[in-house]
Structures are given as structure tokens and as C-alpha cells.
């Protein structure tokens, strides 16, 4: 199959997934922000959001000590007994073995970014080696970035092939495919990229909005475009793919709106960490702050739950 | 007045100009003295430089896209709120004008006309597009429509008199149509512009949409004329200044309009209207085929 034929075939297939109207999507998600979630429902939402958090640190200055305290926070976010553990910790490949040691047998997963996160701009062989290395060090999950340059040049077959190779390199580890929505720019592109990725993913894998390293990350609107793609793919093929919005979700209030979107678009089966994650760092403490407020009835001061993830 | 009141030393205010949503002194730190009607010292007014003007243009340019993107209804409400702010403080404004030599009746009439004029333009903000734009019946299977768009940063040079009404009358049509403004206030009675800055800051108007400078015309008019990012000039000016403005504008193809009113002319209804909005919009025409 010549590359050109394959690309043309892909382009046609992707045209089939359909257009997205920007104003229409934004109006739909605005309705989520008028939902009022109170009392028991709010507590359920907050705890679920905690359980869905991929507690993340991706900084040049990360150290084993930082990873260790992150893991402690992940296992026991707060001293209240009913607060669940988070879903995973998310770290750079060099930190995976420290994270593995840190989470022990708590059930918290170790997720590693790989494939030259965040830009992805190295040779494919380097990116695949990084994936294998992270998995060998004990990563349960891998967060990869797609080749945006190839996507925007129309080399869809190449984008897809690279994802397939990463799936293979993951072995038993679950894969989350970062589309990097800020670079894809249009909702049409986000929808296309979602289908492109899902076509080669396995149940238990995820698609993800962003690296968190650019100025535009997860929004209700791009989350909506992606979960609608997931829904359509599931209803067509029976394969459930997970969703992970990442970056830009700082408050509990926002996270509840994302969960409302899931509830009304994908339904109950996706309201679980098996199929939905939040890529976040300071979100966790705001969730705890709100849980404490629901428990005591009093608004919390920020210093009870520091916003700075350094203080974990 | 009580004995305590008689002995109380009043606290005087330091006038600062309103640029980029903040109150600042001139970057040069220069000031010029302003006296009240009795000749007594009133305050040291910022003597703005061309660098202040440059900073103001930057602030206006930064605020431009956001202001242009606001809905016309939102711009209308903000202009109306500005009118509310002025009306609520009309006593202070009238006293200030009288303090600088205006007759009380004139000051009150200027105040009332100024507020009503703001409301007049608030009422234009969500209507001028319907009157200045059009759907054009071209002889082709195309839908063809013309829409008015803001020009960008507009430089306003207000008359010395009437100091408040002149400034308001010139700023309002420019802002109502989505442009942002850098304005030079009256040179002889600059203080009302300082008060206007305070009211702009409390009217929900985003910072940078209107920037007010005080200072000397001879120092600033040349830069108004030549700064390339100012896309249009609206000036109340004499013959020499007009020539200088037109000459300077040529280098960057600015649109130049002069206010023809003077003195009592500013109070008349002829000093306001749709044509003043039209002078500060661009017209964009789009074609699109009609078919299956």
C-alpha cells in the first residue's frame, strides 16, 4: 500500500467522522455549568473526582524525595477515612522506579509520560525505547503524545502507525494518547484525531486532551468533543475507550462540571476511574477543601490545604 | 461651620492621568501648575510626554480586540453605566467646572448635555450596524453584505472649552463603535478629565479602552499626528494644528476628522449623531455564493 493511497484513504475516513460547530459545542457545555449539585450528590462527585485523579508532577526539578511525598499524598490524600486514594501518580520516566516504590501495594497506579513528552520531537526509535524503559521500570500506564506535525501535514497513516507501535511497546501497560488540543486548534481536528487514535487502542486505554505544558488545556468544550467521539466509537464498535482531561482544571467546581458532562454524554459506565481521569495537581487539594466544607459547613481557608504542590 | 471644621486642614488630591486602567503620573515626572478661577494654586497636573502617549497607544491597542469583541449590548450598557456614574457625581463635576471659571448655569447645562449625550451614544452602540451596514442586491448569485467594524486606536484631541462636554462628545461615538481611545484633554482646564478618569474606572469599562492625557498641545499633537498605530484622529483644532495633523497623518494614511463646533455649538443636538459614529468605522463587504 503506497503511502499516498493510505493517506488519501485516511483523509476520506476522517472526513466521515463529521464536522463540529464551535458555537454549538460551547452552548451545549454552558448548560453543564448551570447544573446545581448539592449535598450528598456533591460529596459523591467530589470523592469520585478524587478517585479519578492522576496526581501529577512533571517538572525539571523533580527529585526522588518529591516523588515519595507525592505518593504518600496519593495513597492518603487526607486524614478523613472515607476519602479514597487517587487513581494514579503521573511522573517522568526517570522517576518511575521511585514512584513504584512509593505506591507499593496501595492500588494507586504508576503512570509515566513517555515518547519525548511534551513535544514528541525525537526519532520514533527513541520514543519507543522510552516507553519500553518506563514499562520495564514498573509503569502501569503510559501517557504518550501524538505526532502533531504529521497530523497537521495530513500524514494520518503515520500518526496512526506510531500509536500502534506504542501500543505494542506498552505490553500490559494501559496507554493514554495525548492529542495536545491546543496545537490541533479546531474542534474538527480534535474529533478526527480522537477517531484516529481510538482505531488502534484497546479497551482500558484512554485518549487525553493535553500535556499541560501549553497555555490551552482541557476545557468543557474540548472534553465534550472527545467524549462524544468516544461515545460514537463505542456505539459503533462496542469498544469502550477512556477519557482524560488534563491541565487547566484547578477547582473542585470545574471538576464537577466535567463529571456532569460525562454523566449526560457517556452515562454511568464512564463515571469510574477505569474510564475517566483528571490530570491535575492542585485540583486534589481543592477537592479536599470542598469535602471538608461539606463535612463541617464552614468555608475553608486556603492554608489548610495548600495550593502549592511543593508542600505535599 | 464649627470651630473644628474651620481649623481643619483639607487633604488635597494629587491628579493622576488614567492610562491602561491605572492612575499614573507622567513617565517624565513633569507637572504644570493649574490655578482655580481666583488665581490660587489648585494642583500640579501631569505634563504628559510623547512617551506617555506611546504607552497609552499600547494600552489602547491591547484593549482593542477585547472591546471590539464585546457584544454591542454590553458596550451600550457600559456607556449607560458611565452616564450613571457622571449623573451621580454631577454636583462634584459642576463645582469643579465652576471652580475653574465656568458660569454655574453653563456648567450645569454642560453636565446635563454630557450625560444625555453619553446615553444617546449608548443607544447607538446596538443600532448603528443596522443603519451603516447593508445587504447589497448584487447582480450575481451571491449573498453580499456590508458590516461596519471598528478602526482600532483613535486619537482624540479635545477642545479647551467646554472642557468636559467637549471631551465626552468626542470620546463617546468612538467608543460606542468598538474603537479604543487615546485622548488629550483641555489644556487650560484639565482637571475635569481627571475626574472623568475616575468615573471611567468605576463604570465597568475595561482598562485601556479610554486613556486620558493632560499636558501641552504643542508637545503632544505632533506625536498624535505621526504615531502609526493611531488609525484615526478626531480633533478640535485651529488652522495650524489642522495642517500639522493632516501632514503627519499622511505618512500612515490616518483618517482625520475635525470637530466643527465651538463654544455654544457643543450644546446643540447637531453636535451628536450617527455620522460621528460612521467616521470611525471601517466597512467590510463579503460575498458568498447562494446554491445547493
Amino acid at each position, binding site marked *: 500500500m503506497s503511502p499516498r493511497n493510505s493517506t488519501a484513504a485516511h483523509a476520506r475516513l476522517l472526513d466521515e467522522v463529521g464536522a463540529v460547530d464551535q458555537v454549538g459545542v460551547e452552548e451545549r457545555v454552558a448548560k453543564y455549568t448551570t447544573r446545581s449539585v448539592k449535598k450528598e450528590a456533591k460529596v459523591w462527585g467530589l470523592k469520585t473526582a478524587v478517585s479519578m485523579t492522576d496526581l501529577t508532577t512533571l517538572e525539571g526539578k523533580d527529585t526522588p524525595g518529591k516523588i515519595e511525598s507525592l505518593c504518600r499524598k496519593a495513597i492518603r490524600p487526607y486524614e478523613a477515612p472515607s476519602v479514597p486514594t487517587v487513581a494514579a501518580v503521573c511522573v517522568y520516566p526517570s522517576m518511575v522506579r521511585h514512584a513504584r516504590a512509593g505506591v507499593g501495594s496501595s492500588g494507586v497506579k504508576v503512570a509515566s509520560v513517555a515518547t519525548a513528552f511534551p513535544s514528541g520531537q525525537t526519532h520514533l526509535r527513541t520514543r519507543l525505547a522510552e516507553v519500553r524503559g518506563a514499562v520495564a521500570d514498573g509503569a502501569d500506564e503510559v501517557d504518550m503524545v501524538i505526532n502533531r506535525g504529521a497530523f497537521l501535514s495530513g500524514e494520518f497513516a503515520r500518526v496512526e502507525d506510531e500509536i500502534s507501535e506504542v501500543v505494542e511497546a506498552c505490553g500490559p501497560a494501559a496507554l493514554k494518547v495525548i492529542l495536545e488540543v491546543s496545537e490541533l486548534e479546531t474542534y474538527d481536528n480534535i474529533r478526527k484525531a480522537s477517531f484516529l487514535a481510538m482505531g488502534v487502542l484497546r479497551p482500558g486505554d484512554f485518549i487525553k486532551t493535553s500535556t499541560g505544558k501549553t497555555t490551552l488545556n482541557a476545557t468543557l468544550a474540548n472534553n465534550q468533543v472527545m467524549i462524544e467521539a468516544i461515545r460514537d466509537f463505542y456505539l459503533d464498535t462496542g469498544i469502550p475507550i477512556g477519557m482524560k482531561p488534563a491541565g487547566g482544571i484547578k477547582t473542585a467546581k470545574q471538576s464537577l462540571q466535567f463529571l456532569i458532562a460525562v454523566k449526560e454524554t457517556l452515562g454511568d459506565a464512564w463515571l469510574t476511574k477505569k474510564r475517566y481521569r483528571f490530570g491535575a495537581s492542585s485540583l486534589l487539594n481543592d477537592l479536599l477543601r470542598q469535602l471538608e466544607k461539606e463535612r463541617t459547613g464552614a468555608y475553608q481557608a486556603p492554608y489548610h490545604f495548600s495550593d502549592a504542590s511543593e508542600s505535599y | 461651620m464649627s470651630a473644628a471644621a474651620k481649623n481643619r486642614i483639607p487633604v488635597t488630591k494629587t491628579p493622576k492621568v488614567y492610562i491602561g486602567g491605572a492612575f499614573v503620573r507622567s513617565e517624565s515626572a513633569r507637572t504644570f501648575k493649574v490655578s482655580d478661577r481666583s488665581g490660587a494654586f489648585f494642583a500640579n497636573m501631569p505634563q504628559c510626554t510623547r512617551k506617555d502617549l506611546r504607552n497609552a497607544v499600547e494600552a489602547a491597542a491591547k484593549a482593542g480586540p477585547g472591546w471590539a469583541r464585546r457584544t454591542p449590548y454590553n458596550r451600550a450598557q457600559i456607556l*449607560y453605566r458611565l452616564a450613571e456614574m457622571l449623573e451621580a457625581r454631577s454636583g462634584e463635576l459642576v463645582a469643579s467646572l465652576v471652580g475653574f471659571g465656568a458660569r454655574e448655569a453653563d456648567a450645569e447645562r454642560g453636565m446635563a448635555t454630557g450625560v*444625555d449625550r453619553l*446615553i*444617546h451614544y449608548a443607544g447607538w452602540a446596538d443600532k448603528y450596524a443596522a443603519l451603516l451596514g447593508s445587504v447589497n442586491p448584487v447582480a450575481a448569485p451571491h449573498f453580499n453584505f456590508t458590516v461596519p467594524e471598528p478602526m482600532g486606536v483613535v486619537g482624540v484631541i479635545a477642545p479647551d472649552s467646554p472642557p468636559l462636554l467637549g471631551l465626552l462628545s468626542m470620546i463617546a461615538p468612538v467608543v460606542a463603535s468598538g474603537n479604543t481611545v487615546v485622548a488629550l484633554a483641555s489644556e487650560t482646564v484639565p482637571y475635569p478629565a481627571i475626574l472623568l478618569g475616575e468615573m471611567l474606572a468605576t463604570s465597568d469599562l475595561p482598562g485601556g479602552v479610554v486613556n486620558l492625557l493632560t499636558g501641552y498641545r504643542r508637545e503632544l499633537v505632533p506625536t498624535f499626528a505621526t504615531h502609526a498605530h493611531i488609525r484615526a484622529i478626531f480633533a478640535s483644532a485651529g488652522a495650524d494644528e489642522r495642517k500639522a495633523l493632516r501632514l503627519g497623518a499622511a505618512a500612515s494614511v490616518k483618517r482625520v476628522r475635525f470637530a466643527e463646533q465651538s463654544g455654544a455649538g457643543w450644546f446643540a443636538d447637531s453636535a451628536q449623531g450617527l455620522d460621528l459614529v460612521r467616521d470611525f468605522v471601517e466597512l467590510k463587504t463579503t460575498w458568498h455564493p447562494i*446554491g445547493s
Partner: protein
Amino acid sequence: MPTRKRNNPAGSRLIFGDLWEYDPAPETADPKLKGRYDLFIDGRFVRPRSGKYFPSINPANERKLSDIALAGPADVDLAYRAAARAFPKWSAMAGRERGKYLFRIARLLQDRAREFAVAETLDGGKPIKESRDFDVPMAAAHFFYHAGWADKLEYVAPGRRVSPLGVVGQVIPWNFPLLMLAWKLAPALAMGNCVVLKPAETTSITALKLAEILQDAELPPGVVNFVTGAGETGALVMGHPGAAKVAFTGSTEVGKAIMRQLAGTDKKMTMELGCKAANIIFDDAPIDQAVEGIVNAIFFNQGHVCCAGSRLLVQESVADRVVAKLKNRIRVLRVGDPLDKNTDLGAINSRAQLATIKRLVASGVREVMYQPPCALPERGFYFPPTLFTGVTQSHRIAREEIFGPVLSILTFRTVDEAIEKANNTAYGLSAGVWTDKGSRILRMSTELRAGVVWANTFNRFDPSSPFGGYKESGFGREGGRQGLIDYVNLA
């Protein structure tokens, strides 16, 4: 390799269950209702001559909210005389001053927005989310927009001098009580007319609350008068010799009756009547947004919208997909207590309207009717969102206005067929077009016989956008410069 697709014959389904239920979220702001509302004539609240009142109930639970005065012939006459007395001074007032009254009304309504939203929901049954986010802000916007026209009369009809008509009689419906009142009052007043207005019988409360705002705004007495009552009172308002013009929004049937009533007089009139709007979806439409558009078109306000997209015309090649997505979408619509902030579909406005809906639905074919499971409250008037597929043009539910949350779904194959089917109705108020292709939007807009065409959107309104119908949906326009012409004489 191309994206793999597996056929899924087992049919994966989405589960919209009770894993995470929203708790009740009632709006608690006080609507400050009075136990009894009198007529508003000549700037004051006055008892009706007959001394008679009728109850206004809350359709969500059938409980009485308030007693409303019943205006008879003497009251209507009193109102018209008050308006005529107020007219010379009001019309001679400088436009800039007249406008300021309207600006005041807009601002005062914005101040009391939440109170009015709750009152509107209690009286009419619409969800609080709608009254709060749409009805009240839009009503304030109409006053604000029209206020700015009062001193710009020379631009209303270029080349002509305009002058007010005099006293205008207006009758408004129950589906957007406060908003319809704003649509009627604002242009009339801005142009210098005085008004006698009858709110709908089941929804008089927010009009009479607005009368309080008119007093706070110090509107000169007699400029606006409210006479409450039912059909008889409406006929008196429309037929009074003091009216230079009448404006009516309501059913086509009643509109025709008024036109007959007024034949032989020289009253000007405008009518905004019923519709059976076609919402047309092409195969290249952004499908999920189109589905949301369908929901906005027919379930917004429980379908009590004159311009509701009550006929879905979907291109055959995407019909199954659209209907499947629509069913999933309406499964998460929440029907229930209008005062709950999470309610999407509130109560049907009255027992009578509910009976009408049920009767028309009964005439549809049961086998192709779909209603998502929803628990309706025991008391009050409720109806679930309802779809009928496989409908054709000859079906009753494709021809008659139901005025409820009921969608009739038809298919088409070509653009020409869509146009033909869409126009195959005596009505012509609105239409919707969903396609990714600009030239097609413009062609459809050119050929659809409807006063409002929504492309890739639906049920969008703005004070500056003229609204009104073709054919039996009425004549005259409301909103924009064009909407002012009906309220002036041209010289």
C-alpha cells in the same frame, strides 16, 4: 492501515441510570407575590368595577398563587381613556427624555431579576433556569434596546417623518409572559404611543409586578395600563374604538377571529400567530450540535414556543444516526419541578393545554412514538419529551400545532424535497437549517417561506433582530428598526 471498524450487532447501549443523582436544588429567592392583584390603570392599582377576581394557579402543583382582577367593559374603557389623556404629553416629550424612562425600567427589572424569575416560573410553569437565564434578562434587554430609539426617530423610516399612532391595544400569550410584554411595550412606548395591554389569563402576575416597576420608574400615569382577564377581556381590548392599532400574539385561530372582528374599522394591526416550523438536517451537518439544536428547538420551554422546530426533516442517509443520538440526548432531560435549578422541562402551562397535547398525541401512531422513561410528579400538569418517527406530511401531527414537547420526524432525500416539504404548510414563522455548507444555507434561507431562518442554531432572539411570520403565522415584525414601523405614522 485504515481505522478499523467492527460492526456491533449486539448494540452497545449507554446507561443513564441513578448512579449519581442530582439532589433537589430548589431556588429559594422570594418572588414577593401579593395575595391579590388589581388592575393597573392610570398609574394606580384599582379594583375591577365588577368586583370579580379569578385565581391564578401554579401549574407545577395546581395550588393557587393569587387572585387576579377580572376587567370588564367599564374597566377597559377606563384604561383607554387614561391612555388617551396621557398621550399628548407623552408623545410631545423629547425623545431623549422618553427614552430615559425605558432605561430606568430596564435597570429596575435587572435589579429585581431573581424575584421576577421565580414569579414567572411559579405562574407559568417554565423551569427557573430558563426564566432566570433567558426570559428576564431578555425582557430587560428589550427595554434597554428600544430606549435608545426614542431620540433617533429620524432614522426609523429614512425620508419620512414619523409620529406616534396614539393608543395601542395589545394582547399577549402565556408562553413568555414577561418577555412578550417587553416585546410589546418597549417599541410602542419608545415611539411615543400609550398602551392598554391584556396579559394572558393564566399568567398575569409578572405583568402586574412590572406595574410596580413602572411606578418606581415614575412613568407618567396612563402611559401604560394593564387590564387582566380572559378571552372576553381580550376582545374588548382589541375592539375598543380608542385603539389606533392593535397587536396580538397568540394562536392563529384567535388571530383570525380578531381580524374578522376588526374588519370595517381602520385600525392598524400586527399579528404573531402559530407555526409548525421545519428543522432541517442535512447529511453534512455537525450532527451532535444539530441534535442539541433539535432539543433547543422543540423542548425549550416545553415546546410552548410559537416558532418551535416541531417538525424535524432529516436527510435519509443520516436519519437513523440522528434519531439514535436524539433518543440518547433526551434520556438525560430532566422533567419536573420548575423551581428546581436542574429541571430542563417544567410544567405544561394549564390543564387545558395538557389536554390539547394529549389529544393530538393520541392521534399519532403509537408504534413509532418514543418517550424516555421519566417519573412525572403526581400533581401538576406534565408531559414527557416525545418523538414520533416515520411521520409524513399528511399526518395530523405534522400539520397541526401541538404547542408541547412533541416532535414529528420526517425524512427527505434531496435539497429540493426538503424545501418543498418545509414550505408545505399554511404557517411560516420560522425554520432551521443544519449543514456545513455555506452556499446551501444561503439557498435554503432564500427559498424557505419563513420570517426567521436559523442556520446551525435555533431559537435565538435579540432585540435588534426582526421577528415575525409569513402566511398564516401573521404579519408585522417585532425587534430591530423594522419592528418600529408598525408603531408609527409615516408622513
